[in-house]
């Protein structure tokens, strides 16, 4: 491996560092667009993450649209049958958890599930194939699993967070939203001398509830990122052990199939749960 990681030292460290480096583009202080000299620049774009993420999203959209366009009631194709199984699983999960009426939640859940699943699945491509291929055509860095990029998982959980706020305000009103942030878990009293304690209680509630609210997108994205990043790192470490990597790789890949599916499902399920909490009045 080319020793580009900036970690210096051993080959191993640079190999790992290289694999964990995104292909970045940003505007340098000189005003020029530069590649891969963007450490610490908040305006950098992870080109590889975006590329693979959008590509996999398009694959999802294309494949499912194909089934949807040809969907037939009496004579479904095998692909349609498969798509319908996925749709039914998602639809069942949504119906079990979300009791309101919304035409957005179910498609949102389906998109999240399949898209995250596909992005996670990139983890099963042997870790050197695509980066080496990219290096052969002159691209120095290539991180192929978008969900190992914290920006990608945050990007999705922020969209979910906005939807949580939207559904809360839509179903409970602004006052309901503010009340939810300030009047729980300790209900302040506004009668008699206890009113003096009310501001303190409200402040306490607000701190507690804001943390709880912000923890939702944070935990959602960090859970996915953490799992996939750790999985990827272990694949990279396994790739370092020489010929013995084959059985190890196989074992970890089999185990990882489970993680890939499970994490996609958890992301979808938690999205549904958060949104159903946001639209239920209690």
């Amino acid at each position, binding site marked *: 491996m080319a020793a580009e990681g900036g970690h210096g030292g051993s080959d191993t460290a640079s190999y790992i560092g290289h694999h964990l480096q995104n292909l970045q583009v940003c505007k340098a202080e000189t005003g020029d667009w530069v590649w891969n000299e963007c450490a610490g620049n908040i305006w950098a774009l992870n080109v590889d993450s975006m590329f693979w993420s959008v590509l996999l999203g398009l694959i999802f959209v294309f494949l499912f649209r194909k089934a949807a366009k040809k969907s037939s009631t009496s004579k479904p194709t095998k692909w349609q049958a498969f798509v319908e199984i996925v749709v039914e699983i998602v639809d069942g999960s949504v119906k079990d958890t979300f009791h309101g009426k919304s035409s957005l939640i179910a*498609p949102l859940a389906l998109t999240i599930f399949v898209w995250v699943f596909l992005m996670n699945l990139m983890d099963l491509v042997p870790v050197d194939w695509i980066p080496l291929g990219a290096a052969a055509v002159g691209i120095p860095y290539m991180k192929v699993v978008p969900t190992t990029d914290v920006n990608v998982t945050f990007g999705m959980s922020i969209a979910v967070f906005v939807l949580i706020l939207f559904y809360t305000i839509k179903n409970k009103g602004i006052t309901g939203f503010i009340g939810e942030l300030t009047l729980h878990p300790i209900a302040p009293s506004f009668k008699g001398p206890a009113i003096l304690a009310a501001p303190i209680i409200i402040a306490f509630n607000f701190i507690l509830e804001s943390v709880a609210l912000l923890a939702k997108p944070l935990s959602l994205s960090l859970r996915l990122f953490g799992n996939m990043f750790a999985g990827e790192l272990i694949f990279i470490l396994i790739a370092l052990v020489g010929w013995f990597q084959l059985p190890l790789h196989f074992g970890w890949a089999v185990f990882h199939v489970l993680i890939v599916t499970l994490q996609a499902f958890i992301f979808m399920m938690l999205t549904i749960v958060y949104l159903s909490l946001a639209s239920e009045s209690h």
Partner: protein
Amino acid sequence: MDINLPTLGGQTLAMIVFVWFCMKYIWPPILNAIEERQQQIEEGLAAADKSQEKLVEAQSRADEIVNEARQQATGILDQAHARANEIVADGKDAGVKERERQLSAAKAEIEQEANKAREELRGQVSAIAISSAEKILNREIDGKAHDDILGKLAQEL
């Protein structure tokens, strides 16, 4: 794991677009197809149940018809037997009657013949008697004097 806003915003934007597309063009047709098929299956099963019922009904109706036909056939057979017996009996009766008629006719003919023969015989006997009496009387008395007596006698015989 540096945070950088373009990637983050780009991912959010991509997600919005994909979710919108899914909501608009993927989810509804697929779910429609599923629901439509569910309904079709439900209707199909109901129709199958109904036709099963109809089949049972038709079976019992067919059994009924067959039974009826069998009964009718038995009736017809019985009638035919009775009629045949009747015809045979009638034939026997007619035969007996014919026999009796012919017998009596023969008897009557025989009797008639016998009577005729007897009459003839009687005529012949009386003629013989008269001729023998004539012969006797010719010898002793004039036949003409006693003719009336002899005629009466012949008539009585």
